């Protein structure tokens, strides 16, 4: 997870012009870092490319909208990175 986090934090810093030191595993991409939906598309594209995955953003959005999970599950970076790790593992399996 730590190397995933380093990669994701670097992507967010570069893509969204946010100082790297402000980005922690506890940061919420929207509430803490102020990343809007368009910037998040850039972040998602960079993450998909970096890890060779396709984050299921539509499914995640639906789960949030239906109240099944809170936004923390997908937008707190530590959780996001855990989800990315699961996608990487599923791809390798």
């Amino acid at each position, binding site marked *: 997870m730590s190397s995933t986090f380093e990669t994701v934090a670097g992507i967010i810093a570069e893509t969204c012009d946010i100082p790297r030191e402000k980005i922690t595993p506890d940061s919420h991409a929207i509430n803490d870092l102020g990343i809007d939906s368009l910037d998040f598309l850039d972040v998602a594209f960079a993450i998909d490319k970096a890890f060779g995955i*396709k984050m299921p*953003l*539509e*499914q995640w959005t639906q789960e949030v909208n239906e109240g099944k999970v809170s936004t923390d599950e997908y937008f707190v970076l530590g959780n996001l990175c855990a989800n990315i790790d699961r996608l990487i593992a599923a791809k390798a399996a």
Partner: protein
Amino acid sequence: MRLEYFQMVDRIVALDLEARTVRADCVVPDASPVFEGHFPGHPLLPGVLMIETMAQTGGWLVLAVLRFQRMPFLAQVKEAKLRSFVVPGQTLQVEARLLHDGSGYAVVTGSIGCDGKKVADAEITYRVVPFPNETLRAQMLDTARRVAVPEAFLHD
């Protein structure tokens, strides 16, 4: 091209879903109200319409990849370069390549060639969402047939 109706693509001439590429021909009309203002005495295809032309061409590719089950809406244009003027009567060869088919978004690179020279290029991102209504989907299918998107790509 019917500029005043935002119909930029005249004909899809190649659509390769394996290579994830599309090529389209677009003929700039000899006359259009657009040229009355852009510019008086010096008609030029507006740069924003060159970008729109690349976006629509890439959009047909995304629609075909998704078999017209979802609609791409322009969300972002990066690194747009308008390298040369385009004037009434010229024929444009427009190409796009799908860089990434993401979940709820897609990214393409697009370019426009004219008389053997690249005149514009850009990276274009779309939000890809369910069609907001059947009217739009039916209209897109009609237009797809008009611009010669192969029938096999119009359905699942």
